[in-house]
């Protein structure tokens, strides 16, 4: 061993504390429940297929809507409850939002915009968190709550997730509990509305306003 190798071995580093992952594992049995779990997923997918006309694409999109993957699970992963406004990133102007999203933030009239890892957000009254992003497979959601397909506008389907809190994984952030959520896609954009007291009709009305298809 050379002197340099000895010096390297003698380095003692101040490592970050190791998280006790083993104590936090929530493992699902691999074999025993595999068949029932699959059957449950198929039942949900078939239910979704009946809920919307295009059966095959509906089954696929049930679990994957543009930038969002929704996985139905028996037990939620551990997650923190954090305020909607936490971790939104840095305040940005409209020009920066346009670059990040590949087009202007919707709707054109909005409050302060924040950006973090490609997700542009703003807080609406309620409070409701409106987030938009362009990248594929950006968010992961794990739900035990109700999930249903909703018609946001002609040719625009959305997912309405409500009831029990679900867990959302934003890139670069630890998982957090989320309230009621409407997710839909328009063009290459994925749009997400979230609020603990967000009602389905209010979410749909807001979504239509964002799309510029609001009645009247």
């Amino acid at each position, binding site marked *: 061993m050379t002197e340099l190798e000895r010096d390297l071995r003698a380095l003692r580093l101040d490592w970050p504390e190791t998280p006790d*992952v083993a104590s936090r594992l929530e493992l699902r049995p691999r074999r025993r429940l595999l068949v029932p779990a699959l059957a449950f997923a198929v039942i949900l997918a078939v239910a979704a297929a009946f809920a919307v006309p295009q059966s095959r694409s509906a089954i696929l999109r049930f679990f994957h809507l543009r930038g969002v993957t929704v996985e139905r699970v028996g037990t939620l992963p551990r997650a923190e409850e954090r305020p909607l406004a936490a971790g939104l990133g840095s305040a940005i102007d409209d020009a920066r939002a346009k670059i990040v999203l590949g087009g202007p933030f919707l709707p054109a009239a909005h409050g302060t915009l924040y950006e973090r890892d490609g997700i542009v957000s703003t807080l609406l009254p309620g409070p409701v968190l409106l987030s938009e992003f362009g990248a594929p497979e950006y968010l992961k959601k794990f739900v035990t709550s109700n999930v249903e397909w909703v018609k946001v506008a002609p040719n625009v389907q959305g997912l309405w997730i409500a009831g029990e809190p679900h867990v959302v994984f934003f890139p670069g952030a630890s998982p957090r509990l989320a309230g009621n959520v409407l997710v839909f896609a328009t063009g290459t954009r994925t749009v997400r509305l979230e609020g603990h007291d967000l009602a389905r009709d209010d979410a749909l009305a807001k979504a239509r306003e964002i799309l510029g298809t609001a009645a009247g």
Partner: protein
Amino acid sequence: MGAVEGRPLDEERELVRRARRGDERAFEQLVRMHQETAFRVAYLISGSEAEDAVQDGVIKAWRALGRFRSDAPFRPWLLRIVANEARNRRRSMGRRAALTLRAEREDVSGGAAPSPETAVLAAEERTRLLAALDALPDDARLALACRYLLELDEAETAAALGVRRGTVKSRVSRALDRLRESYD
């Protein structure tokens, strides 16, 4: 850092055998034995994403345990999965992980003499060496960190680097040359 933290391989094999049959407690024990090394490897690759990388990697390992050869050592297999997960997360970050590795402070207040190893290098030298190591390209830095800071063996280093075992020696050798150039 020993291969199985000082535990006999027989014990590890027994835990693997039980975990493969679906024993969750046995798998948790296996994870507990190796989570520090797994976390540090993930930290070297992905920085602040390390905890999530380990968490997701461990879940993937649990799901894939049926495909694990029970006579093979568990740690390289786990490290490969966790390191892959860390690399994926780093790619999605689109930038090099910002590390905050610092040399450990020598505790002189307890009155005990410093160990022979820590006494070898003065504090400034350690800081300078660490800075030179941190300035290396990712592959070189990770290879040296695995071999000398984490004291992984070749198989484990290969798993962490995502390369064949035969590649480890040459990569470490080249990395040492580069480090020598900047450190000396």
